[in-house]
């Protein structure tokens, strides 16, 4: 049995309401970083709260380190929790907040002090022990909340959209802090988020959820490059879809508005007919000499920072093409005629 074993969790809120979580099962190995990714209301937070012990599931069981915990109250599960709203105790200093769990556990004062200092070192706020939460910025408060959860050496760390309340810049900073600390301590972690970039960059594995159900479980690379459902494909990253006619289901050959295109995988339903050819914007190249070539007209050029996204109309569809920013880059002009190319291995057929 895995370190954390979630089996068949189902949760309804009230009679008649649909299931907030529907038959959720997952095995998490010790030290793994797992993200629950999905839109609002997909059940990811509810699942987390069941694991934490703040909600009772209507069906299913949770095993932590081999022990069934469904009837163990939240305060005896030894599970660290970080909330979106920080939830620091406003009446305590930073050091008292971080030491709270140890004080509850009745640890001696000396050990507590040492541990608090160690934790403040870990979150890189060693001199902030005497401040009160309201004297800190949002990002600092969330660091302290993390230290507080870690001080008791929990078996499991749960984070419920911990970065949603923060500014974009601080979000990215704190994201790598969380990953660094998690890897230093080799902590089994579950991270709930609606932000695909957070999930992709942080996780060992991602659980994509929709309408209370699991859509796909896999590494970021698998989820992004080999999505198994239409929801996953469209929710994670941007995807170009070309309506094509499959000409050879076995080899994945097809035509788009008369142009023959090759894909390296067979069609999913193994037969000819209408299908959609999927390709990520970053696999398309302007100009270039890929196996597949399409020509079109530039609609817009969008500067996103390190990436420039060009929208090109090809026949009846609009395709997005990503290219890296360069200081010397000459951006394609709007309305210019361009050729797009992509290799056969970069695209796949979907229903």
């Amino acid at each position: 049995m895995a370190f954390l074993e979630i089996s068949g969790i189902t949760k309804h809120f009230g009679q008649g309401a649909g299931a907030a979580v529907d038959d959720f099962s997952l095995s998490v190995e010790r030290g793994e970083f797992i993200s629950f990714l999905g839109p609002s209301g997909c059940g990811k937070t509810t699942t987390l709260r069941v694991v934490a012990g703040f909600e009772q599931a209507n069906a299913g069981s949770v095993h932590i380190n081999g022990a069934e915990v469904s009837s163990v109250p939240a305060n005896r599960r030894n599970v660290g929790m970080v909330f979106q709203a920080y939830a620091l105790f406003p009446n305590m200093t930073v050091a008292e907040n971080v030491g709270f769990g140890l004080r509850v556990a009745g640890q001696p004062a000396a050990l507590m002090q040492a541990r608090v200092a160690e934790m403040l070192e870990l979150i890189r706020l060693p001199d902030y022990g005497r401040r009160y939460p309201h004297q800190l910025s949002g990002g600092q408060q969330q660091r302290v909340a993390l230290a507080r959860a870690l001080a008791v050496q929990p078996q499991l760390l749960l984070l419920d959209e911990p970065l949603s309340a923060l500014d974009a810049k601080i979000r990215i900073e704190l994201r790598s802090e969380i990953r660094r600390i998690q890897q230093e301590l080799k902590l089994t972690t579950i991270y709930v988020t609606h932000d695909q970039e957070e999930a992709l960059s942080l996780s060992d594995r991602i659980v994509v959820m929709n309408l209370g159900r699991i859509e796909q479980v896999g590494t970021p690379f698998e989820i992004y490059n080999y999505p198994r459902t239409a929801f996953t494909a469209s929710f994670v990253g941007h995807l170009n879809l070309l309506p094509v006619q499959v000409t050879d289901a076995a080899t994945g050959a097809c035509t788009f508005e008369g142009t023959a295109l090759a894909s390296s995988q067979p069609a999913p339903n193994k037969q000819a007919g209408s299908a959609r050819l999927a390709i990520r914007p970053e696999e398309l190249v302007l100009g270039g000499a890929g196996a597949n070539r399409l020509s079109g007209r530039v609609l817009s050029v969008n500067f996103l920072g390190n990436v420039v996204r060009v929208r090109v109309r090809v026949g009846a569809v609009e395709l997005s093409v990503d290219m890296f920013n360069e200081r010397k880059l000459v951006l394609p002009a709007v309305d210019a005629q361009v050729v797009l190319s992509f290799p056969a291995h970069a695209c796949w057929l979907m229903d």
Partner: protein
Amino acid sequence: MTKSRFNPWTWLWVTVATLYFFVPLWGTFDFSLRMKRGAITFLAYQKVFADPKFLQSFRYSATMGVITVIVSIMLFVPTTYWIHLKLPRLRPVVELLTLLPFIIPVIVLVFGLIRTFSRPPFRMTQTEFTTDILITAGYVILSMPFMFRAVDVGMRAIDVRTLTEAAQSLGAGWLRVLLSVILPNLRVAILSGSLITFATVVGELILADFLVRPALGPYMVVVGGGKAYEPAALGILSFGLTWICLGIIQLVSRGDVRLQPIGR
């Protein structure tokens, strides 16, 4: 929207409100000083303090006030906490319930209490002690709106639920959460609820009158019926007491920087 910071309407309102409140007050104060014809003296105040019945009734009301405050805190803090945490959907219902004392005339409450508890099997009006228990129960009901509301507002300000869950995930049990996390952050709310409760009890009239206990309210009515200057002095005294209470609340809540939100 208007450019000027000194909006004439604002000032009109402030002026009207001031007159409305303070003209009667000033009139009463002025009157209370004129017991001796043609001179400004504190004679009326001296007379009030010289009356042993005043001290006796004040002591009685103050004692009942303190007891009521303690009972109210013990009743309403855990109840409100529980509602916030477990039964948030019940909150509007409870809010309505706590408004009942405003809506049901006190006199109905008194009738009800006397009818029910002065008869067998209770017979609580037989001895002074049991009558005082009965009157405390009445006072707790009367002060319920203040105490509940103060605590309720305090709890909403700190997001009780998430704080509780945070403390629980750190291993704290119910009692620990309540004592270490919830109560310290409700200090101001509880204090303000307590002072208002205390003031209500001290000023209460009908309950003590009908249950024939020597409280300050009935004493003031008796004095008010028979004399001219002393009631004015009493009024000013009780107003002063009130302002001291309010001053304490303001002082404490200002000192408590930790309750201020971050930035603007």
